[in-house]
């Protein structure tokens, strides 16, 4: 069952669609939860809560905010970080992507690129980042530290944290884009 069909049938309360959803994304969801929590039992709880949340709120899924895969990863990561940091429902700013044009086509393109990227190549792109940029990215994304907490942990001012986060993502994007182009021409 393809993601489009899964989300449509989930919206109609189809348990078969839920089963397809779980079989398709549970490994990724569990892996994300373990990466954040480093605890199998807690990760299981988070994955269970997340999939049940998806089951209950499939109608709230918005295609313009990314793929089903990304949506599930975001739910799992946010819940895992809330659990890790004991902060339920922390208010996070979400970019207003619905105001942007060509969103869908870019997402699709990027999904294809992502599918093409081997895990090892993505790891390499991350490893090519300067250490302080990679650490900033990891502390933010996988540990959920605020910019101030990252600054405290790395003994740098707030402005440096912001700058490193920007440079890390820009460089990662550039590296991956460069590889995408080189694969297409090779």
């Amino acid at each position, binding site marked *: 069952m393809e993601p489009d069909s899964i989300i449509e049938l989930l919206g109609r*309360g189809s348990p078969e669609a*839920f089963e397809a959803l779980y079989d398709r994304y549970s490994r990724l969801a569990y892996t994300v939860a373990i990466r954040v929590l480093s605890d199998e039992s807690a990760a299981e709880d988070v994955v269970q809560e997340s999939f049940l949340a998806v089951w209950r709120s499939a109608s709230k899924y918005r295609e313009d905010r990314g793929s089903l895969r990304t949506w599930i990863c975001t739910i799992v990561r946010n819940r895992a970080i809330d659990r890790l940091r004991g902060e339920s429902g922390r208010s996070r700013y979400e970019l207003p*992507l619905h*105001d942007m044009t060509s969103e869908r086509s870019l*997402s699709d393109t*990027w999904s294809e690129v992502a599918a093409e990227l081997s895990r090892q190549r*993505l790891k390499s792109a991350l490893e090519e980042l300067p250490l302080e940029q990679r650490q900033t990215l990891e502390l933010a994304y996988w540990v959920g530290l605020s910019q101030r907490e990252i600054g405290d942990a790395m003994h740098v001012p707030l402005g440096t944290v912001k700058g490193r*986060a920007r440079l890390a*993502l*820009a460089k990662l994007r550039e590296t991956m884009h460069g590889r995408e182009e080189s694969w297409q021409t090779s």
Partner: protein
Amino acid sequence: MANELNHTEAEELIALATLGVLPSSDGAELDAHLKTCAPCRETARAFTQTVAVLPESLDLLEPPAALRRRLLSAVYGSPSARRRGAGALVALWRLIPQGRLITALGAAAVAAAIVVGVLSATRATAPAGMQSFPVAATTAAPTVHGELTFYPATSSSVLTVSGLQLPAQAAGQQPLVVEVWLIPRTGSPQAAAFLAASPDGSTWSAVIRGNVLAYKAVAATEEPGNGKPQPTGPQVFSVALTTSG
């Protein structure tokens, strides 16, 4: 003032936002900037897509099989799934004219039509080869009754049970679950599913994947917490899977 962010400052906030660490309270200034700045909107898209693939860098791990069983039991036993299963009956009711013009005679005719319709619909939709087996109570749970229905077309079974009451657990103890086991003709029981209770607690259900007819019986035990790899608690019911002929 809201538009005073330059591109670099905006990109820094975009990076934090896409990494999920920009508090909502800091978003207004960025919102205002994005409304008027196409290059930064493009950056926001690019960073969002970059962050979206970060989980792909992880080596995938297999979640425990018990997690799948628990989730499917909960979902298949949920009210929305059951409503969906009853969809054909609801659709039939909708065919009946509603309103004040229905007389007593009309209502009787409608009732008769429903009975005939339901019977016909049941016959028409009953999957070929479907087999049902009664649930047998045990001394540990003497009021339990129910049925297991095997659907060969999907190689799955639906187990529905009533009259089951789990003993209350003392504070600090793990809650009990009802774990369902497939009992092979030889060898050890195999974990198959967990029963999920309906919202009012009157009915319990589970879906068992695979051909249950290859097994001697299905049984259920009370187990602590997330269940056990082998049965350890009291048996609350069993289902003998003897086929006619």
